[in-house]
C-alpha cells in the first residue's frame, strides 16, 4: 500500500493535493466534490483587504451621495439595520465549509498592509479555519521605496499576524525578491509555518482598439512549474517552514516533481478550472500508478529527494547551468 500522506504546517494530510484559492471554492457543493475527488485540504478564496475597504467606502459614499441637500429628498435609500461588510460574510463561509467537509479548511487573506489584518485573521481563526494563508501582494510603484522597506513590510506583517493566532500561518509570496533565500529565511524567522511559492501577479493587458488597460488573468501552464521547482529545491532544508508549490501544477508528473524538489504539498487552481474538480482523482490515480511502477512506498520518501542539497550536481540550480543551457540550444529549425 503506497502511502500518499504528508504533513503541511502541522496538519496531517492524506495526500499532497491541496486546492488553491479559486472561485470554485465559493460553492459548498464544490467543496464536497473536491473532498470526494481526493483533495487533502482546501484553501478558500481570498478575503481581499482592499475589497473590504472599497466595499465599505463605496457603500458609505453612495448612501451619502446627494443627501441632506434638497428639501424633498434628504436621503435616497432606506438605512438598513446592518450590513454584512468586512470579514463577516467570509467567516460565515469558513464556518459552512468546515461543516460541509471533513478535510482541513485553510482561510486566505490577500492584502498588503498591517491595517485590519490582525482582526480579520483572528475572525477567520474563530470561524474554525484550520490554517491561514497570507497572500502578501504588494506592487511597489513608488521610485522612492527601497527593496529593504518592502521586505520589512512583509516580515512585520507576518510576525504581527503570527503572534495573534494559534493556527498555522502559511505565507504566499512572489519570486520577485533580490535574494529570495534571505527573504525566505526572514519570513521563517518572522514565524511563517509554511512558504507557498509563488503567487501569480495580475498583469493587465492593453486593448488596442479602445486604447484601454484591461484586466487579464490567464490560467497557469505546467511551464510555470519550473521556476517553482528551482526555488523549492534551493530552499529545501534551509528554512524551517514547510514549502508548498502553487502555480503550474497540472499533471501527476508535476506533483511528483514538486515533491522531489522538496514541497510538502502542491496547491492547484488552474488545473481544476481547466479540467474540472474530478481532475483531482485522475492526478491521484496517476501518481499512484507512477509510484507503483517506480516502486516508491511513500510521498515522504521522495520529498526533497531532488533538492539542491540532494542532487549530485548542485550547480544544476546555479548560474553555470544557465550558461550550459544557453549554449546547448539547438538552432536547428530556427528561420534565419
Amino acid at each position, binding site marked *: 500500500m503506497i502511502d500518499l500522506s504528508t504533513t503541511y504546517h502541522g496538519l496531517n494530510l492524506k495526500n499532497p493535493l491541496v486546492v488553491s484559492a479559486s472561485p470554485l471554492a465559493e460553492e459548498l457543493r464544490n467543496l464536497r466534490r473536491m473532498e470526494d475527488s481526493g483533495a487533502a485540504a482546501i484553501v478558500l478564496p481570498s478575503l481581499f483587504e482592499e475589497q*473590504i*475597504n472599497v466595499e465599505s467606502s463605496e457603500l*458609505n459614499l453612495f448612501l*451619502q*451621495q*446627494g443627501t*441632506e441637500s434638497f428639501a*424633498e429628498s434628504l436621503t435616497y435609500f432606506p438605512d438598513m439595520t446592518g450590513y*454584512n461588510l468586512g470579514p463577516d460574510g467570509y467567516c460565515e463561509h469558513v464556518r459552512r465549509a468546515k461543516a460541509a467537509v471533513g478535510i482541513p479548511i485553510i482561510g486566505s487573506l490577500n492584502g498588503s498592509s498591517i491595517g485590519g489584518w490582525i482582526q480579520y485573521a483572528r475572525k477567520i481563526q474563530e470561524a474554525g479555519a484550520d490554517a491561514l494563508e497570507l497572500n502578501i501582494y504588494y506592487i511597489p510603484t513608488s521610485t522612492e521605496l527601497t527593496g529593504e522597506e518592502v521586505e520589512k513590510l512583509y516580515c512585520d506583517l507576518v510576525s504581527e499576524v503570527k503572534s495573534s493566532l494559534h493556527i498555522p500561518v502559511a505565507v504566499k509570496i512572489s519570486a520577485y525578491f533580490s535574494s529570495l533565500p534571505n527573504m525566505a529565511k526572514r519570513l521563517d524567522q518572522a514565524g511563517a509555518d509554511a512558504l507557498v511559492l509563488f503567487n501569480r501577479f495580475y498583469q493587465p493587458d492593453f486593448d488596442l482598439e479602445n486604447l484601454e488597460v484591461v484586466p487579464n488573468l490567464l490560467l497557469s501552464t505546467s511551464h510555470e512549474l519550473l521556476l517553482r521547482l528551482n526555488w523549492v529545491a534551493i530552499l529545501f532544508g534551509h528554512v524551517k517552514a514547510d514549502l508548498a508549490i502553487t502555480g503550474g501544477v497540472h499533471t501527476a508528473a508535476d506533483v511528483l516533481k514538486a515533491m522531489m524538489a522538496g514541497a510538502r504539498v502542491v496547491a492547484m487552481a488552474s488545473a481544476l478550472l481547466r479540467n474540472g474538480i474530478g481532475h483531482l482523482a485522475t492526478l491521484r490515480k496517476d501518481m499512484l500508478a507512477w509510484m507503483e511502477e517506480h516502486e516508491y512506498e511513500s510521498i515522504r520518501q521522495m520529498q526533497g529527494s531532488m533538492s539542491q542539497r540532494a542532487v549530485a550536481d548542485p550547480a544544476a540550480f546555479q548560474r553555470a547551468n544557465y550558461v550550459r543551457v544557453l549554449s546547448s540550444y539547438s538552432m536547428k529549425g530556427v528561420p534565419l
Partner: protein
Amino acid sequence: MPAQGKLREESRSGAKFENNHLFISEPNGAMLMTRSKVTIDGNEAAAYAAFRVNEVIAIYPITPSSPMGEWADQWSAESKPNLWGTIPRVVEMQSEGGAAGALHGALQAGSLATTFTASQGLLLMIPNMYKIAGELTPTVFHVSARTLATHALSIFGDHSDVMATRQTGFALIASNSVQEVMDFALLAQAATLRARVPFLHFFDGFRTSHEVAKVEELTNEDMLAMIDEELVQAHRKRALSPDHPFIRGTAQNPDVFFQERETVNPFYEACPAIVQEEMDKFARLVGRAYHLFDYVGAPDAERVVILMGSGAEAAQETVEHLTARGEKVGVLKVRLYRPFSIEHFVNSLPATVKTLATLDRTKEPGSPGEPLYVDVATAVSEGIATGKTPFKTYPRIIGGRYGLSSKEFTPAMVKAVFDEMLKEKPRNHFTVGIEDDVSHTSLEYDPAFSTEDPKTVRAMFYGLGADGTVGANKNSIKIIGEDTDNYAQGYFVYDSKKSGAVTISHLRFGPKPIHSTYLISKANFVACHQFSFLERLDMLKAAQPGATFLLNSPFGPEEVWDNLPRTTQEEIIKKKLRFFVIDAVKVARDAGMGGRINTVMQTCFFAISGILPRDEAIQAIKHAIEKTYGKRGEAIVQKNFAAVDHAVNHLHEVKVPDRVSSAFDLRRAVPEEAPEFVQKVLAKIIAGEGDDLPVSAMPIDGTFPSATAQWEKRNIALDIPVWDEEICIQCGKCILVCPHAVVRAKIYDPALLKNAPPTFKSSAARWKEFKELKYTLQVAPEDCTGCTLCVQVCPVKSKSEVKHKAINMAPQPPLREAERDNWNFFLRLPEADRRTLSLGQVKDVQLLQPLFEFSGACAGCGETPYVKLMSQLFGDRALIANATGCSSIYGGNLPTTPYAQNPDGRGPAWTNSLFEDNAEFGMGLRLALDKQTEYARELLTRLSSNLEDELVKSILSADQTTESGIQQQRERVRALHAKLAGMKTPEARDLASLADALVRKSVWIVGGDGWAYDIGYGGLDHVLASGRNVNVLVLDTEVYSNTGGQMSKATPRGAVAKFAAGGKPRPKKDLGLMAMSYGNVYVAAVAMGSSDMHTLKAFLEAEAYDGPSLLIAYSHCIAHGYDLVHGLDQQKAAVLSGYWPLYRYNPDLARLGKNPFQLDSKPPALPLEKYIYNETRYTMLTLSDPQAAKLLLQFAEEDVRNRWRVYQNMAAMPMNGAAKEAK
C-alpha cells in the same frame, strides 16, 4: 370641567412665563425620570407614536410627509412591534387616493389603521374621508400641513390643505412643536377610539415636520395607559365579517338620507369633552397639560391673538416678552379646531379681553374671512347671544393671514399684530410678513424687534449639500440635546437646485425651552463651510456684535484677510467678530474623507463654542460617528476619527486688522445686461432677498418669463471641460449628453472670427457640405456643474497620451474670465439653419440650439439630456405638460427656469398641473390645439374670397413634415397675419388670434416613472387609448427620485428602494408592452448611453407619428447609488445585459403590412450581475441580506430571459394582426 379648571389655574398661577408643557404641573417627577430624552424631528415623532398604535399603514410619498411613511416602513422591515407586540404592516399605494381607499378598507375590516400625507395628497383622500367620517370610524391621519398648489406649487408649510378638509367630518387637532407632535399623535388615537370621530392630526410642514428638537419620548406604558383595550375590541366588533354579516355603504333616497346624516350629531357634540378628558388623563400620566384651547399670557389681557400650529410658539415667545414689560396681551392656541367647541373657546379667554386677532395660515379668496376668523367671530357672537361668555364687553375681532408657504412668522410680526390691535380702527383682513403694495393689506413691522433669550446660543452654518454640513449639524444637535442639560433645536434650509446646493443650518440651544419657530436672524456663531460662498452670500449680515465667525479657508490665518470681500471685512471689523480659519478640505483629504468636511467643521464648532469641555466633545463626536457610520464599516469610522483628531490642530484664530483692505466685493446676483424683470425680481430671489419683494413685484397669475436660467451664473464647478480642437472629430456626443447644456457647438463663416476673443478656439468644420465653415465647441464656464459626463463619453484619445481626450477637465477659476468672454462671443455667432442640417444624425442635431439649459438638476443627471434633445428637435414649436416630480422641479422651480428661447423668440411653452393628471392635462393642450387648427382652417376657407387664393390653398395643403415645410408655413402664416391686419371683420380678427395654430405644434407630456407607472397610469392609459397626437416622454429612473427614492412599479426586481428595503420582490411593470397592446400607439424604449442614434430615431419617429407616442427613456439617477460619471456606461451595460432591450413599435409599419415591432438591441451578452452590481441599489442587498439578493438575482435573470423571449418572438412575427385584416 374640574380637571381642566385646576390645571388652568396651575398653569396660570405657577411660573406663568415658563414653559407650561415640559416642566410645570408635573404630578409625578419620578415618572418623568424614566422617559428618555431624544432629539428627533416632527415627522419621526409622529411616526413613532402612530406606528405603535396601529396595525395597518397605507402610504404614498409626498413632501414633507414622506419621512413618516419611511420611518414606519423601516421599523416594519426591522421587525419592530407595535404596542401589542405585532409588527404593523406597511403598504405603499399608487397614489394618496389609493392609500385612503386601502385605509378605508382596513378600517372597515377592523384594523387600527393610519396614513401620513400632505397637500394635494390630502386632497386626494377627501372623498374617502367623508366616507370614513360618515361611518363613524376611528382613525388618525397624520398630516404635515403643506401649501396647496394654486398659482404655483410649493412644498412648504401652511394650513391650506388641512382647511380644505374641515367639512369632511374629521376632527382636526393641531400640534405646534415636535414634543406636541408625539403627544398629540397618541392623544388623537386615544380620543378617536372613544369618540368614534376620525381625527386628522396636523403640524406645520417643514417648520415642525423637519425641525429637530429634544423631546421626551413616550413609553409603551404611557401608550398602553392611554389606549383603552375595550375600545379597540369595540372597533373590531364593528368590523365587516361574514361570521356576523351586515352591509355598510348603502345607497339612499330623499326619504331617509338626511335623517341618517343627522344621527352623528351626538358624537360630534361629545367629542370635545372626550378630547379634553384624554388630555387630562395624559397630563396626569405624563405631566404635560394640554387644553382644547390653551391660553398663555396676562390673566387680565385686553388683546389676544388666536392661532394654531407652530406660529403659536413664536406668538407665545412674544407674549411672554411683552407681558414681562407689563403689556396686557395673550395668545390662545387652538388645539382642537374641529369639532369646534364654542363653550370651551369662549371660556378659555380672559374676561378682560377687548380685541381679538385671529391669524390664519391659509387664504380663502372671496370668503368673508379666513376659516379661523369666521369661526371665532361666530363663536363669540353665539357665545354672547347665549350669555355663555365671561366677557365684560363684546370684543372687537379682526383677522389676518400670515406664513403662507412657510413664510417666516416672527415675534416682530406678532408684535405688529398687537400694535394694530391698539389702534382705534385696526385693519381687518390684514396680512403680516409681506409688503402688500397692491391691496394694502399688510401690517408694517419692525424687523429689529427680537425676543430671543440672551442665554440661548444661536448658530448658523452655511454648507454645500455635498459636504455633509446638515448631517453633522443634526449630529451636533443630538449631542447637545442628549449629552447636556440644554434644550436644543435644529432647522435646516435647503436650496431650490439639486446641484451645488447651498444649505443653511439654524441651531439653537440653551437652558430655557425654545419656542422660536422662526429662522435665526441674530446669530452669535456663524460658520462658512465653503470659501466660495463668501463672494455670493452676505452671511455675516445675521452675525450679532461680538459673534464668532468660523471659515473653512484654503488661506491660512496670515493670508486669509486679503482674500475676503470688502463687505465681509467691514462686518468683521464693525461687529468685532472673533474670526477663526481652518483648511478643512486639507484636513479632510488627509484623513481620506474626500470632500466631506463635515466632521472637521463639527469638531471646530465644538472646540470654539465650548458647549462641552473639549475632550468630552471629542468623545461625544466620536460616539456619534460610531453610531452613524459603524455599520458601514470600520474604515469609515477610522477616517472620521482621523478627521476629528486633526481638526483642532489646524484651527487658527485670525488676528483681525483694523482696516478694510479688500479690492473686491460680493458678486452681482445677475449680470447687468439681464432683462428688467430678472434684475428687479429674480435677482433678489437669487440673492436670498425674496422676502423683501412686495406684492406688486409678482406676476398675478403664475406666469413667468422663460429663458431665465441663463442669468443665474452659479459657478459651482471646480473643474470644467476644455476642448482640444486638434483632435476633436466633432461627433457631438459630448454636447448630446451634457445634462446642463453647457457644452455647445456651432458652425459659422470664418469671417465672423474677426473680433473673436484671443483664446477663442475653432477648427475647420468636418462636414462634407460645410467644408468652408469653421467649427467651435464652447463650454459655458459659469453654468457647468463639473459632472464630467462629456469627458466620459468622448470617443477620441490622444495618440501620445491616451488619457487625454478631445475634451478634458481643468480647474475653473483660472479659466473663468477668458471662457466667459469666449462663451458670450460664441452666443453671438449665428445659430445653425435647421433646414440645412441632416436631423437624422447626432452630429448635425448637436448643432441645434438647446432650448433647455442650465437647469437645477443634479450634476450628471440622466433625465435632462433627453429633455434637452427634445428641446433641440421640437422646442421651437413644443407645448410641454410636465408631471410634478424631478422634471417639474428642475424645469420650473424659481428663481430661474431652464426652458429657453431661440433668436426668433420661440421656445417651449411649459406648464405643470399636478402629479396625477399630467397625461390628461397634456391631452387638453392637444385638444385645444386641434380645435384651434380646425377652426382656423374653417375661418381660412370662409375668408378665402378676401384673401389670396394661392396663400389660402398653400396654407391648407402645406406639408409640415420637414423643417423647411414648417418654416415655409410660418412664412405663409406671417403673410396671412399681414393680410388680416388690414381686415376689420370679426372673423378676420378671430382668425388673426388663431392663425399660429396653422403651424404644426408638438405636444409633449413629460414625467417620471412615479407618474407614468403609478399615480398617473390610469390617465396615461386613457390618453394613449384616445388616439390623440401627443408625445409622452417617460424619464424612467425606476424610483420616485424627487421625493427621495421610493419604490414605484418601475423599480426592478432585486433593487433596494424605500418601501422595498428588502429588495423589490416583484418585477418591473412592462409599460411599453402594455401600451403596445393597443396597436395604435408608437412605443419605444431608449437608452442614450447605449445608442444615441437609436434614441434620436425614436424621438423623430414618435413626433412624426400622427397619434399617441410613448418614449420610455432609461435615465440614470443619483438614487441608483453610483458615480454618475459612469451613467452612460451603465446604460450600455443595461442594454448589453438584456435588462433594457431597445425597441421601437411603430403602428405606421403595420399599416404598410410590416411588423410594427423592431427589436433594436442584440441578445443579452453580459451577465445581469455585471450590470446591476455596479449600483448600490442592488449591492446593498447583497450586504444586508445576501440570501435574498441571490434569490432575487436569479428571478431577475429569469425576468430578462422571459422578456427577451417575448420580444424576440414579437420581432420575428411576419406582420401584425391589423395587416392581416387589411389583406
